C-alpha cells in the first residue's frame, strides 16, 4: 500500500517536491524519470538493428497468420452495420474490459490493469525508443513529462503487481480451465512484462546519466524487443487481434450464417473456413471461460469449446484455409493435429451459448460448432440412429416427436382452442411440445386461459409443423428449409399479424433463423406477453418460494430476463439460482439434443435440477417446455422435490384461486 501511495502521489504532481518522498521511502527517489543521455552512433546502430530484428521476426511469424486469415473464405453475410453496436462493444468489452472483469473479477481486474497499463505505456515506449535515437519528445522534467511519467508509473506498479498475481495463478494455483499443459512461454512473457515494469519504475530511483540508468534502459528495451516476436505464436496474439475480433464479430448472438452457393454445406473442410472464423481462431487467448461454463464439458463429455477453437487454429496452421482435407478429426484419421475438433464433440453441444457469452475476445463458438454439424449432416457423414429418426420424423410427420399430426388436431379439438381465422389478435403457436407433449399441452391450455382472462383474442393454426429448430441446430439445412418455408407460408396464408409462443426455441427460430427464407410476423414469448399485461394479472397472496430457471434461448439468445421474473413475483417469492440470468446453466435439451440418445457422463438436466432444488425453493418455475420436460425427468428421481411449473401455469393458478368473471 505504501508503495502505491508513493507512486500515486507522484502522479498527483507532488513529486515536484523530491525531499518529501525521500522521507517516505528512504531511497534516492528523484521524482523524475531518469533518462540515459549520450547515445553513441554505435548504440543507435545497435538499437536500430535490434528493432529491425525484433520487428522482422514479428512479421515473419505474423505474416502466415495474416495470410491464413485473408485467404479464408469471405463471410458472405458480413456487414459493418450496426456500427453503433460495434463501437459500443469495442468500448465496453475491449477498452473497459467489462467481460474480462465481470466473469472472473479478481484475475479480470488484474488483466484489466495490465491492459490499461499497456495503453498508458504506448506513449512511454514510443518516447523510450525515440530517446534511444536522440529524438525523445517528452522531457521527464517538463510539466507534461512529469505528469505523464508519473501517471505511467502508477500503471507500471499496477501491471507489475497484477502480472505477478497472474503468474502465481497460472503456475501455482493452476485453475483447470487454463489447461493441464504448463506454458513456459506464458511464464517467460510474464517475466518480460514484469521486467519492463520494474526497469521503468527503477528509473525513478537512479541518477540521470549514470551507468545504471543506461543498463536499465537497455534491459527495458531488450525485454520489449524480445516480447514482440513472441506474440504471434502464443496466446498473446490476442493483444494484436482481439480488439479487431471484438469489433468485427458477426452481428447477433449465436447467429448461424446462411450458406453461400451450391457448394457450401457448412464447415466440411478448410476451404469452408471463413475469415471471421480464422480471425476468431487466432484470437483465442486460451483462458477457458468457454469450457468452464460449458454444460457438456462440466458433465464429463468430450466437447471442450476452447479445444474446438484451438483445433481450428491448428488445422489452419497445418493445412491452411484452402485445404480440402476434412475438418472433423474422425474424417482425417491419418492426421494427428486438431483431434479435439471431432464429430463426437460437435454433436454434444446444446447450443446454450454460454461459451459465446463468456468469451472476452469475441469468439462465436456456436456458429462454428453448428457449422461443423452442418458440414457433417448436410453431406450425410453424420450417421446417428436418433438423429436420423428425428430428421425422418420431421420429413414425414412434421414434428420432432414423430407423432401423427392428427394427434395435434385431436388436442386442439379436445381443448377447444379456436382456429386462427384472421379476426383474432394473436396466433398462438403451439410448437411440437405444446401440440404433442402432455406437459407442453398443459402449459398451452393454461396460457390460453390467461389470454382468455385478459380478454385477448387468439387462435391456433389449423396445420402447423415444427419450426425446424432441432434440424437447424443439428446442421440439417434441407429439413430446416422445408420447415421454415412451410411455416412462413402457413402464417402468410392465415394472414397472421402477431404470434405468441410458449417455447423460446420456436420464438428464436421464427424471429431469427427463418429470416433466410422470409420475414415472419412479429413474435413474442409468453413471458413478454404476460409481463406487458402484468398490471391486469392477479397478484397471489402467497409466500411460496419459486426459483426461476432462465432458459438459454430466452435469456442469452433473446435478452429476456426481467419479464418472466415479474410474472414469478406475482405468484410468490422469487428465488435466484446460484447460476442465473446470463450465467444460467442449460437444461441439456437445446441444439436438438433432447431428441438424441443417452448422453455420456452426467446428465446436464440432473446437474441443473439438483442446483435448482438445492435452493430449497418450493417451486421450480420454467419458461420453456423443453426445460420443463428435462427437469420433470430429473426431479422425479429426487426424494423431496419441488413442484415444477411453467410461468403460464403459475399465472393460471392465480386465476383459479382469485377467481374472475372472464372465464
Amino acid at each position: 500500500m505504501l508503495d502505491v501511495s508513493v507512486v500515486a502521489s507522484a502522479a498527483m504532481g507532488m513529486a515536484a517536491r523530491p525531499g518529501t518522498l525521500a522521507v517516505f521511502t528512504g531511497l534516492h527517489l528523484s521524482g523524475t524519470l531518469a533518462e540515459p543521455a549520450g547515445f553513441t552512433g554505435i548504440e543507435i546502430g545497435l538499437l536500430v538493428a535490434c528493432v529491425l530484428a525484433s520487428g522482422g521476426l514479428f512479421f515473419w511469424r505474423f505474416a502466415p497468420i495474416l495470410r491464413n486469415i485473408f485467404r479464408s473464405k469471405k463471410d458472405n453475410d458480413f456487414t459493418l452495420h450496426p456500427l453503433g453496436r460495434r463501437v459500443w462493444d469495442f468500448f465496453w468489452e475491449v477498452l473497459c474490459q467489462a467481460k474480462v472483469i465481470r466473469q472472473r473479477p479478481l484475475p479480470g481486474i488484474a488483466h484489466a490493469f495490465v491492459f490499461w497499463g499497456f495503453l498508458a505505456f504506448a506513449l512511454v515506449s514510443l518516447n523510450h525508443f525515440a530517446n534511444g535515437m536522440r529524438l525523445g519528445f517528452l522531457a521527464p522534467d517538463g510539466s507534461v513529462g512529469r505528469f505523464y511519467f508519473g501517471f505511467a508509473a502508477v500503471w507500471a506498479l499496477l501491471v507489475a503487481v497484477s502480472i505477478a498475481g497472474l503468474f502465481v495463478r497460472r503456475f501455482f494455483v493452476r485453475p483447470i480451465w487454463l489447461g493441464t499443459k504448463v506454458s513456459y512461454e506464458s511464464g517467460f512473457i510474464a517475466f518480460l512484462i514484469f521486467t519492463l515494469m520494474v526497469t521503468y519504475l527503477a528509473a525513478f530511483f537512479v541518477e540521470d546519466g549514470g551507468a545504471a540508468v543506461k543498463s536499465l534502459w537497455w534491459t527495458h528495451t531488450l525485454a520489449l524487443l524480445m516480447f514482440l516476436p513472441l506474440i504471434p505464436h502464443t496466446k498473446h496474439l490476442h493483444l494484436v487481434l482481439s480488439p479487431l475480433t471484438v469489433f468485427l464479430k458477426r452481428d447477433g448472438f449465436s447467429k448461424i450464417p446462411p450458406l453461400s452457393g451450391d457448394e457450401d454445406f457448412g464447415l466440411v473442410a478448410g476451404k469452408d473456413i471463413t475469415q471471421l472464423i480464422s480471425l476468431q481462431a487466432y484470437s483465442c487467448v486460451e483462458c477457458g471461460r468457454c469450457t468452464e461454463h460449458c454444460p457438456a464439458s462440466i458433465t464429463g463429455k468430450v466437447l471442450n469449446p476452447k479445444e474446438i477453437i484451438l483445433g481450428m487454429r491448428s488445422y489452419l496452421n497445418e493445412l491452411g484455409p484452402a485445404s480440402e482435407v476434412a475438418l472433423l478429426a474422425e474424417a482425417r484419421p491419418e492426421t494427428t493435429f486438431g483431434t479435439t475438433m471431432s464429430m463426437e464433440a460437435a454433436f454434444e453441444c446444446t447450443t446454450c451459448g454460454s461459451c459465446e457469452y463468456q468469451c472476452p475476445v469475441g469468439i462465436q463458438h456456436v456458429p462454428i460448432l453448428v457449422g461443423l454439424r452442418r458440414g457433417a449432416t448436410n453431406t450425410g457423414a453424420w450417421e446417428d440412429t436418433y438423429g436420423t429418426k428425428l430428421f425422418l420424423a420431421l420429413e414425414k410427420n412434421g414434428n420432432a416427436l414423430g407423432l401423427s399430426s392428427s394427434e395435434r388436431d385431436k388436442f386442439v379439438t379436445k381443448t377447444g382452442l379456436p382456429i386462427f381465422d384472421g379476426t383474432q389478435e394473436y396466433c398462438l403457436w403451439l410448437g411440437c411440445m405444446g401440440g404433442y407433449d402432455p406437459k407442453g399441452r398443459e402449459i398451452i391450455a393454461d396460457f390460453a386461459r390467461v389470454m382468455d382472462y385478459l380478454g385477448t383474442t387468439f387462435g391456433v393454426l389449423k396445420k402447423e409443423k415444427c419450426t425446424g429448430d432441432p434440424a437447424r441446430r443439428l446442421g440439417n439445412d434441407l429439413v430446416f428449409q422445408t420447415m421454415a418455408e412451410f411455416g412462413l407460408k402457413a402464417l402468410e396464408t392465415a394472414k397472421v399479424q402477431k404470434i405468441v409462443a410458449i417455447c423460446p426455441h420456436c420464438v428464436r427460430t421464427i424471429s431469427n433463423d427463418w429470416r433466410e427464407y422470409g420475414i415472419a410476423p412479429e413474435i413474442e414469448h409468453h413471458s413478454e406477453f404476460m409481463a406487458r399485461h402484468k398490471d391486469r394479472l392477479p397478484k397471489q397472496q402467497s409466500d411460496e418460494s419459486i426459483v426461476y430457471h432462465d432458459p438459454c434461448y430466452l435469456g442469452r439468445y433473446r435478452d429476456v430476463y426481467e419479464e418472466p421474473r415479474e410474472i414469478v413475483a406475482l405468484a410468490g417469492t422469487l428465488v435466484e439460482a446460484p447460476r442465473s440470468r446470463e450465467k444460467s446453466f442449460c437444461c441439456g435439451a437445446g441444439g436438438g439434443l433432447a431428441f438424441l440418445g443417452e448422453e455420456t457422463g452426467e446428465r446436464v438436466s440432473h446437474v441443473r435440477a439438483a442446483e435448482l432444488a438445492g435452493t430449497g425453493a418450493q417451486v421450480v418455475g420454467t419458461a420453456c417446455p423443453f426445460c420443463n420436460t428435462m427437469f420433470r425427468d430429473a426431479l422425479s428421481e429426487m426424494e423431496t422435490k419441488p413442484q415444477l411449473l411453467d410461468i403460464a401455469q403459475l399465472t393460471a393458478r392465480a386465476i383459479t384461486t382469485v377467481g374472475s368473471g372472464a372465464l
Partner: protein
Amino acid sequence: MKILVAVKQVPERDAQIHVAADGKWIDEDDLSYTINEPDAYALEEALQLKEKNGGEVVVVCAGPERVTSTLREALAKGADRAIHIEADDLGERDTLGVARMLAEAVKGESPDLILTGLQSDDLGLGQTGVVLAELLGIPHATIIMQVEKTDLGLRVKRELEDGWFQHVEMPFPALLTIQSGGNKLRYATLMGIKKAKTKETATFSASAAGAKAVSLEKVYLPEKQKRTEMLTGTPAEIAAKLVEKLKFDVRVL
C-alpha cells in the same frame, strides 16, 4: 449390378382422410404425398447393395406430375437415374394393370434385380411386385429382410410368421419385395438434393388402361373408431375381462 427400384407415392401416413364426393376414392385436394414406406426401405437396400457391389440404381415411379418429387428425393438419397411413368389414371388400373405398365417400362432396362416394398401404405394389396415378376418371367421372393449377392445370384433372408426366418437362394435376374425395418433409412441431405439436380429423369408414357379384373366399388370410413374401453370391477373381475380381451380381441392367448 443394375438394380431397379419401383416406388410408389402415397398420402402421408398421418393425413386426415376424407372420402371423395363420388365415394370411389379419397379427396386428394388437401393431401400431402410421400414415398411409400416399404419402398423407402427397398431404395435403401438398393443403395446399400450398390455401395457394396457397385452398379447402378434406377428408380421408377408411376403416377401424375406430383410423383417427380418422390423421384427427386430418391435421386437425392443416391439413386443414379429415375424413370417417371406418366399416368394420371392409376385409379383406373388394378394391380395387374399397374404391373403391366411397370413391366413395359422396365423391360428395356433389363435390370439384374428389381426391388420394391412389400406393400403400399394406401391400398396395401402387397401384390404389385409379385405380379410384375410373374409378367417378366423372373423368380421372386417376398418380405425380404436382407439381401446378399453370391457367386451364383442372390441369397436373401425372408421373414416368416412368428419370428421365424428362412434363407432363399435364387438366380439373377430376380425381383424382391422388401420388408420395412430391415435396414436403417438414411435422411435426405442438402448435398444429395443439389447433386440430384444434375441427374437424369426419363419419362415414359404408359399405354391406355385396359379392362380391370377387380374393381374398387366404394370407400367409406369404418364404423369403429379406436377408443379406449375402460374395464371396471373387482380385481378378479377385471382380470377375467382382460383375459377375455386377450383371447378374442388381441388374440395372444
